[in-house]
């Protein structure tokens, strides 16, 4: 099931993976805010390169390229939409100019930066780390538990879906037949056993949780604690600096467009 491949986390370890997820999330937020602040091309191009060292240090280039390729389709749509829409919505339709092109490119790049920073975060944060971070950020334990359990059962359900599909095909179910509506309907004999199975599974899970003292005390303890290490402080410090710098530039420095820069 290639569709679910992306959810299957692999246990890799690198400096980046070991960073505290809370700090990493803060860094991603700073990237986010910065990308929203600027609408000119040059700062966005710079911003695009900021997460790249992280990708390389974490050794997740391949996955990262795959996720960027996934975003490309939307990027093209955003570009065309911006380009065409701005062109027709100006009061005095001009010829498609270089500045219009630049503005559309900037919007597209902004989207790519957002996707990029998010994907770096999720590619380098294991779900249990993330669950732990949620727990220690005072998110109610029920939510954290639901999150990690969902991640735990994604591959199990994917396998189950595959088994059901094979079984139904063996009985003569044709999935790739008919028009769009018919094809959607073809999936019903797969969905129903899958849902019934999931419900049964969840009952068994609940039973097992109860038997292991779920809800015994108000204040649960945890096997692990997240502790900020030197690298975490460094990243947090860097992120704050970057945020201050970005706000300063945005407020006081007139940012040139790429065209004016090139003309110089």
């Amino acid at each position, binding site marked *: 099931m290639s569709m679910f491949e992306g959810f299957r986390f692999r246990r890799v370890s690198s400096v980046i993976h070991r960073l505290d997820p809370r700090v990493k999330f803060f860094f991603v937020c700073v990237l986010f805010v910065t990308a929203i602040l600027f609408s000119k091309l040059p700062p966005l191009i710079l911003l695009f390169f900021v997460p790249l060292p992280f990708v390389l240090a974490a050794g997740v280039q391949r996955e990262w390229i795959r996720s960027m390729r996934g975003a490309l389709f939307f990027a093209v749509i955003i570009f065309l939409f911006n380009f065409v829409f701005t062109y027709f919505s100006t009061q005095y339709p001009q010829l498609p100019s270089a500045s219009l092109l630049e503005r559309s490119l900037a919007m597209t790049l902004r989207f790519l930066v957002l996707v990029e920073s998010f994907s770096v975060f999720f590619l380098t944060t294991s779900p249990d780390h993330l669950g732990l971070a949620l727990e220690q950020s005072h998110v109610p334990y029920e939510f954290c538990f639901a999150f990690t359990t969902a991640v735990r059962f994604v591959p199990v359900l994917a396998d189950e879906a595959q088994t059901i599909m094979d079984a139904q095909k063996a009985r003569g179910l044709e999935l790739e037949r008919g028009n769009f509506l018919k094809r959607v309907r073809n999936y019903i004999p797969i969905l129903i056993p899958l849902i019934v199975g999931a419900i049964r599974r969840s009952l068994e899970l609940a039973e097992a949780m109860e*038997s292991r*003292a779920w809800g015994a005390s108000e204040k649960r303890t*945890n096997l692990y604690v997240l502790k900020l290490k030197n690298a975490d402080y460094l990243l947090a410090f860097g992120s704050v600096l970057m945020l201050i710098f970005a706000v300063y530039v945005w407020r006081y420095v007139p940012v040139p467009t790429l065209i004016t820069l090139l003309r110089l």
Partner: protein
Amino acid sequence: MAVIKTRDLTYTYPGATKASIKDVSITIEKGEFVVLTGPSGCGKTTLCRCFNGLIPLFYGGKLEGEVVVAGCKVVEHSIYELARHVGLVFQNPENQLFALSVEKDVAFGLENLAVSRDEMRKRVDWALQITGIEDLSERSPHELSGGQQQRVAIACVLAMQPDVMILDEPTSFLDPVGAQKIFEVINELNKELGITVILVEHRLDLASKYANHVIVMDEGKVVLDGEPRGVFNSEKARLIGVGVPKATRLYQILGENGIRLGRVPVTSEEAASLLREVLKRD
């Protein structure tokens, strides 16, 4: 001293017309290794659920009679209070592991009980070591074989250090060799740590040599209850369709043909030595 005592226990699932267990009165002593067996659908799992409060708290339904576990009347306590005394390992290992790593799963019960981190670390390592899965501690449950999952499920319950461990067909997904290994782990828990074990099992050939108390159920009722040799050798056990150990069956067949062995064997080793005696005598 009895750890589990039931009196006239009858239970009907909500919406069911017929009771799933009827008039069950049994006593299980501390430190016993009990094998609970009987044909499919006879109510073994249902009885196990009565021991840790899942019945009636989780399932609802109608419960009559009395169950006392480790001095607590089950109906008067919540499931998590009983979880300190009774650990239940379920039939399907996959659905009782819900964390993303083995270690975290084993810690789950202790986290719920708010055990301190140091103590938790100690107990988790201890449980992993006894069940022989230390090297799996970082793996995710999805990457484990059925036998390994089964061991993790046992470790999860063991870490909570219960007085009684109930294992509901813990080997149903395993080959005979894997099953044998699990039984040995369970036997160690029983003999060395003094944990009372209740093992629900169909494969009596492998399991019965560890048992010192066998309970046979049929259609919701306890039909035989006693020490293994007597139970396995009874006519009733065979008629119900209990998988009487082959050694015991051999004893019976030889008996029918006029060859009497010294006592009722349960394992093939025992049968072999008894046969040797008989052959020498002739």
